[in-house]
């Protein structure tokens, strides 16, 4: 594209192009994450999951989307019509806005803000207005309780998750999402190895922020029917739904960028070329992985019971083959193109791995109760995050003052933090006999 347009115009056109791509692709992506979620759930629960619409339910998200769009749009009589209409829009707009600063590849970023991380956190926190307004505007007790729970939960866990993130920020020395990834490239290590406990705290906090099980109290089906979404239906409901999954991808993107090396491939700083060529050994990995998936699809295709299912399965295999071809072709293109395409691959791979953990937790753990959730947040995660922060800072200082390996110092810091964690957990067991509810 750089050959077609002068750089000054490209600087304006490219972000718009990226924004359009993200807004267009995201709903589809969210739909397919739902399919993956249902498939993973089915796998863990000894059943098959969606199988009817398309082979292995591959067209299910599209059918669901069409169904939601065609559904009757109900606004309860006694609802506050304006706010009822506005609330899901707030949620989904804020969730989409946060993508502006997320670097999917070294060049694939709508805006490289120097306060990128702060921007994402601020904007995605604003999404809570959508939930609170929606819960209030519905004029239903279930919705109101769901909204109240959501607000309290977000305030508590945003703090812990933020403190977890700061430990990685200390190492990066920048708030720009792009610079954070580049810092990991320069230091030759993903920050998760320096601050694993920071990563853990962020992970727990992010599950709570996105209202996923075991912290899905605002929409706890067995208690509050559907929480703040109880009175919503059809398209408005699907906006909330989209916002929830968009937020999941956002928090996964933040974790990927700060802790898992963003768009970098594993061992990004080591360069081992294939003998006789300039192609790096590890750069061949993405195309081989996708090729494997393609072959598996072709292996499954003849086993499908219906002809059309065989065809669609073969098409899925073909699609994977094309992707593998593109990934392989990038190896021979210019380094910028290679980084762009493979960067997006690795970024999405890490994001989906992170989301897989979300799903795994959801199907394994029972739900916390509100007071227990608050106790976990305020009396375990936040103290732990503070200790982790101080320990990491001390490790950094020690490296600067006395020299030596940072990894060694951070290991020591982690050991200290872990000891504190065990102490806090033990302490919590003793205290848990006393419920702390009144006055909260």
């Amino acid at each position, binding site marked *: 594209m750089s050959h077609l347009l002068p750089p000054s115009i490209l600087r304006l056109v490219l972000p718009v192009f990226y924004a359009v791509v993200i807004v267009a692709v995201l709903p589809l992506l969210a739909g397919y994450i739902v399919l993956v979620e249902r498939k993973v759930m089915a796998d863990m*629960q000894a059943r098959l999951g969606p199988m009817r619409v398309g082979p292995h339910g591959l067209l299910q998200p599209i059918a669901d989307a069409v169904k939601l769009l065609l559904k009757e749009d109900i606004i309860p009589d006694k609802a506050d019509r304006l706010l009822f209409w506005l609330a899901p829009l707030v949620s989904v707009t804020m969730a989409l806005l946060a993508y502006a600063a997320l670097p999917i590849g070294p060049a694939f970023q709508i805006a490289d803000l120097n306060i990128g991380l702060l921007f994402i956190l601020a904007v995605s926190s604003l999404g809570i207005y959508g939930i609170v307004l929606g819960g209030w505007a519905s004029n239903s007790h279930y919705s109101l*309780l769901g909204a109240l729970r959501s607000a309290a939960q977000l305030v508590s866990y945003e703090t812990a998750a933020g403190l977890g993130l700061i430990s990685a920020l200390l190492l990066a020395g920048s708030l720009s999402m792009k610079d954070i990834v580049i810092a990991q490239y320069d230091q030759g290590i993903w920050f998760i190895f320096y601050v694993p406990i920071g990563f853990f705290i962020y992970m727990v906090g992010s599950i709570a922020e996105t209202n996923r099980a075991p912290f899905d109290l605002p929409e706890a089906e067995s208690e509050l029917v559907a929480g703040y979404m109880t009175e919503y239906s059809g398209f408005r409901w699907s906006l909330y739904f989209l916002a929830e999954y968009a937020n999941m991808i956002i928090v996964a993107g933040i974790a990927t960028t700060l802790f898992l090396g963003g768009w970098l491939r594993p061992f990004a700083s080591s360069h081992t070329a294939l003998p006789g060529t300039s192609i790096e050994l590890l750069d061949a990995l993405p195309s081989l992985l996708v090729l494997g998936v393609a072959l598996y699809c072709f292996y499954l295709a003849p086993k499908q019971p219906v002809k059309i299912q065989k065809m669609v399965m073969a098409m899925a295999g073909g699609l994977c083959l094309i992707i593998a071809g593109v990934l392989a072709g990038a190896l021979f293109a210019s380094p910028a193109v290679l980084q762009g395409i493979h960067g997006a691959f690795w970024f999405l791979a890490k994001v989906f791995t992170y989301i897989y953990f979300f799903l795994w937790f959801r199907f394994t753990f029972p*739900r*916390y109760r509100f007071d227990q959730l608050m106790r976990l947040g305020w009396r375990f995660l936040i103290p732990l995050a503070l200790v982790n922060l101080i320990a990491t800072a001390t490790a950094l200082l020690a490296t600067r003052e006395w020299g030596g390996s940072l990894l060694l110092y951070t290991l020591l810091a982690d050991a200290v933090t872990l000891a504190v964690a065990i102490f806090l957990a033990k302490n919590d067991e003793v205290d848990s006999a006393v419920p702390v509810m009144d006055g909260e």
Partner: protein
Amino acid sequence: MSDPRGTEPSNVSSTVLGADEIILNMGPQHPSTHGVLRVKLKLDGERVVDSECIIGYLHRGVEKIAEHRSYQQFAPYVDRMDYVAAVSNGLGYCEAVEKLLGTEAPIRARVVRTILTELQRIASHLLWLGTHALDIGALTPVFYCFREREEILKIFEKYCGARLTTHAFRIGGLQYETYDGFEQDVKRFCEDFDHKIDEYETLLTENRIWVGRTKGVGILSAADAIALGVTGPVLRASGVKWDLRKAMPYAAYDQYKFEIPIRETGDTFDRYVVRMEEMRQSRLICLQAAESIPAGPIMARIGKVLKPPPGEVYHSIEAPKGELGYYIVSDGTTQPYRVRVRPPSFINLQAFDKMARGSLVADVVAIIGTIDIVLGEVDR
């Protein structure tokens, strides 16, 4: 801070803020009221100040129907009360009528009845475990539980052709002889089932969240439990060792060795532990019984037309949910003059308010689940 549980919650914060208590109607259409129970909750924030169970949405007049059917004709109706434990309902009714007739089923019939009833107890407890876990937010155990329950239902289907409302027994014994391989099926299930229970326990018993959600929730003291007439696992979890299978043996229970699990505190966790252990004990009973089913007739000689002598009888059995009693009055005709059922779910549900007061909305669903009600039986 003193323990606010079980005491009147303070209204200080709400009066300062000028907030009112809100009334929340849970049900009759709600994901976790197990059918059409409606619970009216008075809430201060999320804390339950007062609760009221409103029932009757599934009333079908089962007891009245009995007055217009012959004794045999009424037998299938009892299956529709606790429809997840139809076999137990049938056993109670058949034995009650047999007692009224002054007869008893042959020993072979009684042993087969014991096996099927114990399998039904396991199936009922599995359903309870799955839905209870689902209410508390664990999505997966319910599918494992249904997988094993399916095996039990397959045995029922092979025996009498029905899976849910089985009508497995007849007054005086059994309609059908056991099928070839019945003992092996039962034994195979029991042997597999042992480590399946371990599987559920790995998912739940040691889980911090599960323990946090169930320990200390919905405490029912032994005195309260007795005063409210609560029976079954709910009573035993409060520390009262009362099980009709031991206390007043019926069917063939006096022939087998098994333990009555009890716990002390009477909270939701204790009830969970008691039911898990009961499944293990039921498994042992099935194994012992399937080992040696005595030969002999399966039907007592009672004739085709049943005309019990005038009089009345009360007979109760230990159904999966508690004491299931039948009080039958005969006026000497072919139809009962009155049938009164003492359903365990209905009476155990009376303890709900005691357990729920002062707890949180999230606990309410845990408490409904832990009482293990079936609305078909509550409303009849």
